């Protein structure tokens, strides 16, 4: 019985279905329970949160990642899958809290840097990080360096993820790194950057700790940085 529910969670993550009203990638799903309902059902049946998370939600996302790598899935498929995982996490949250869970793999502050109004890439990485089990605080677009660092301090964050689409604004990423250095926080809070004009070289040049060429790379780097830092 339990296995059956977990299998259906994986299937519905792959279909990107948050709840019963979602269509899914293939047809004939409307009305069927989605990830939120299935997670609730699993909890009601006494399946522990760890199993739901690892065998259900995370396994679903892993399969999504594989389908993306082979070219079967496109970015929007991935996005809806991550949103479905997020819907499942929302249902699980009270249970995780009562179990004294840490609230995920770590806390990430996400922002598009000052003077840049582009948010698609940043939103995508935010959703994917959430789907991967990170706790994400999204500060939006056009955020000054000082505010980003303040938020990282207040939220006791492990990571800052910065996005820029314009070659004229990508230079503002460096201000965030400088601000962290100035406050002596850079050892504790690592910086990952991304966006069309950025690169590994640029990340190195401005003293950022990583560059994510896509959302999956961002997740990998975030996991590595947090493991290396040993903060959680």
């Amino acid at each position: 019985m339990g296995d059956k529910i977990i299998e259906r969670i994986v299937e519905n993550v792959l279909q990107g279905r948050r709840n019963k009203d979602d269509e899914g990638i293939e047809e004939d799903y409307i009305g069927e329970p989605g990830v939120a309902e299935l997670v609730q059902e699993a909890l009601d049946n006494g399946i522990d949160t760890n199993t739901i998370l690892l065998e259900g939600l995370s396994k679903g996302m892993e399969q999504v990642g594989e389908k993306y790598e082979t070219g079967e899935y496109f970015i929007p498929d991935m996005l809806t899958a991550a949103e479905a995982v997020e819907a499942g996490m929302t249902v699980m949250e009270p249970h995780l809290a009562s179990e004294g869970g840490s609230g995920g793999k770590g806390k990430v502050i996400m922002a598009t840097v000052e003077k840049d109004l582009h948010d698609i890439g940043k939103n995508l990485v935010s959703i994917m990080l959430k789907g991967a089990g990170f706790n994400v605080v999204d500060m939006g677009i056009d955020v000054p360096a000082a505010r980003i660092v303040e938020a990282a301090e207040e939220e006791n964050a492990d990571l800052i993820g910065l996005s820029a689409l314009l070659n004229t604004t990508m230079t503002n990423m460096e201000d965030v790194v400088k601000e962290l250095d100035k406050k002596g926080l850079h050892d504790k809070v690592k910086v990952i950057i991304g966006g069309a004009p950025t690169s590994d070289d640029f990340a190195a040049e401005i003293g950022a700790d990583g560059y994510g060429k896509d959302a999956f790379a961002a997740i990998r780097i975030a996991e590595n940085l947090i493991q290396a830092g040993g903060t959680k």
Partner: protein
Amino acid sequence: MTGTSIKGFILIYAGGTGTMEKLTYEGGGYNVLTEKEISQIHETSIKVLENVGFEINYPPALEIFEKNGATVDHQRHRIYVTRDLVSRCVKQAPAEFVFYGRKEGNDITIGGKKVNFGTGGLALYVLDLERNKRPGEIHDVAELARLADRLEYLNFFINPLYPHDINIETVDINTRYQSLLNTGKPIMGGIFSKQGLEDSIKIASIIAGGLEKLQRRPFIGFISSITSPLKISAEQAEYIMEVARYGLPLATSTAPAAGATAPITLAGTLVQQNAEALMGIMLSQLVNPGAPVLYSAVPITMDMRTMSFLMGSIESGLMNAAITQMAHYYRLPCYLTVGTTDSKLPDAQAAHESATTGMLAALAGGNFIHEAFGMLDGALTVSYAQYIIDNDIVGSCLRTLRGIEINQDSLAYDIIAKVGPGGNYLSEEHTIKYMRTESFAPQASDRQPYQRWLDAGSKDSWKRAEELAAQFLQEPSDPIIPPEIDARVREEFPELVTVEKGDGLHWETESG
């Protein structure tokens, strides 16, 4: 000097060298949309402008729309316009205008079905003549402008590069001034600050001999941007209004990406693109009726697997052709974007993407076709060699527009009769008369017999293009701005840098 008139194109060639004065070309033969489809796109765009509205977070823009009868939601900075206001603004905008050069034969007319190709983009990197990819610098802006001045089929210059060695506060005037110094062709460029815009106009006024003279014969124009979907930021709205007030040529560029910042369907992207282009036209015309403004479009697709913007996709070419028809429908001069490739090198992909999208825009009759030279990697890198290759590609597109001349002499009955069965035409006068104009001669292509190609070093077109670029950049050129004017400009703007000719010529030997 002899002159021949062919199908309305005036060919003037000196002696037997075949060098020609600037020709004008018209397109419009290719229609991707039917008249009914044009009207369906128009009606849907009007519905968007009336019911969804658009956002401008800039009170003076909201006020001017409100004063002209638009419904304005000040709290949400949202503007809803009626079809009447759209059509009033469209009618007020000029159907065509002359964009002036500062050398003889460099004026271009933009509008109708006249086709002009030029540069554009804002690359971060340069692929130089030693095949190094490196951050762009101000000397590259100067060299690329000089190369642009030299290329036959390139009709206007938009600085294609963000120079990393220039402080952002002075990027506007430094890039603009290096453009003005190095090419006599009409110049456009983006805007980085209000001050930069004002200073650029001041510099151009000094060169023109006063602001009024500049306004009468504008040789610089500006590019502002609209954010897809359906939004103009406060600073861009201010730029649009300011350039319109000056009455200088203006593009209100908007780049809806199908699937990301516009609907995934090409039709849906065209609807939104059309609405956004009309927003730019309206704002400019409400500020200054009759001010020259381009119906501006950068319709692109998105690779839904990688989220890369695709500048060189064939669908982008199709949408540019469709948007040209929309501009013709409104009788507005249009600003298009083709010829940029997503390839990282001047390779086969670069050539076919540049050529197919360029040809579609030319056949459609696009007026001011920008980014058509040198742009690689989705416009993140500019290549000197690709400038040369694209000159060949644009040359082929324009040759296509010239079509096939049919008249008594070209049908050649007399000469067929004279040569008769089994003869040949090689030494006939008729052959000599037409052989330099009938066929287009690309410069970087190889057309030699195999052995000669082998003996000449078995070069590919990339290599030949590099050699040509190097050769063109070494040619002596007369100063386009007289020294006394240059001194006056530099006195007023001491932050202007000096670029020594040859600063960027990395292919020179160290001793040279």
